[in-house]
């Protein structure tokens, strides 16, 4: 039995208070890349009561994703944006979700992201990360940007952190651990980085701009 929208809203207000709930529920957050970072960010933000999530990824769920990404075995082969939207509707049925199954490029990002209040960079490819970060900082300077770099491998979890690089640009991760130089991505360390990103989004929406 799924709770009514009123029951759902009342439960979130009881948890976060009216002021925060209003800020969260009126916000639109774009998530660029729906892998280990993006799928975990989306779930955290949906649970927290973010009003609208914009989920963007061109790719499909692959068996090699399931060790860290929030998909299910029966979703292999589905577009990630569709599969994540399906999972989010089960978790948080009143979050508005818009899916975009398209590759984010230098040409289309500003149009795709214009409705967002906060943009999460959650790609896995370093060139793509740099492309989006430079693009947003150059062309969408009024937006808040929360990016990630360095969360691969079996190193200590304690080096994952959030740094405010510029006025509206936050960077999460250890900034060092490259997928290419480690055993690869391991679920909890990626989730930690995703949690830093999601929590930074909530803090920005709450008006807490320092880290």
């Amino acid at each position: 039995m799924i709770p009514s929208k009123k029951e759902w809203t009342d439960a979130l207000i009881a948890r976060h208070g009216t002021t925060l709930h209003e800020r969260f529920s009126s916000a639109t957050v774009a998530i660029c890349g729906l892998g280990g970072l993006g799928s975990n960010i989306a779930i955290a933000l949906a649970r927290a009561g973010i009003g609208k999530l914009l989920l963007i990824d061109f790719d499909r769920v692959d068996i090699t994703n399931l060790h860290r990404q929030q998909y299910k075995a029966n979703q292999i082969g589905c577009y990630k944006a569709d599969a994540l939207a399906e999972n989010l509707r089960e978790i948080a049925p009143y979050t508005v979700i818009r899916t975009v199954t398209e590759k984010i490029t230098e040409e289309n990002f500003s149009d795709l992201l214009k409705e967002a209040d906060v943009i999460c960079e959650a790609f896995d490819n370093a060139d793509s990360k740099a492309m989006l970060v430079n693009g947003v900082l150059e062309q969408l300077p009024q937006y808040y940007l929360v990016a990630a770099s360095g969360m691969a491998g079996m190193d200590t979890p304690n080096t994952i952190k959030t740094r405010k690089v510029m006025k509206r640009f936050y960077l999460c991760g250890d900034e060092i651990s490259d997928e290419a130089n480690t055993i690869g991505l391991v679920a909890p360390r990626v989730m930690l980085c995703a949690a830093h990103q999601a929590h930074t989004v909530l803090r920005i929406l709450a008006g807490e701009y320092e880290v």
Partner: protein
Amino acid sequence: MVKVNGTELDIAGKTVSEYLATTNYDPKRIAVERNGDIVFKSKYDATVLDDGDSLEIVSFVGGG
């Protein structure tokens, strides 16, 4: 002197591109901030570093 990621370097007068060429940074994987503002990628060649500038270079690694 120019402060780069917290370290004072004697690179005033060089362009951002000239400085990057002396480093191991991959220009495709970085974002450069100068005195709190992003340096546009298209301006690396034309941006001359002044004495007292503060440069912050973010270098992205793979994984996500």
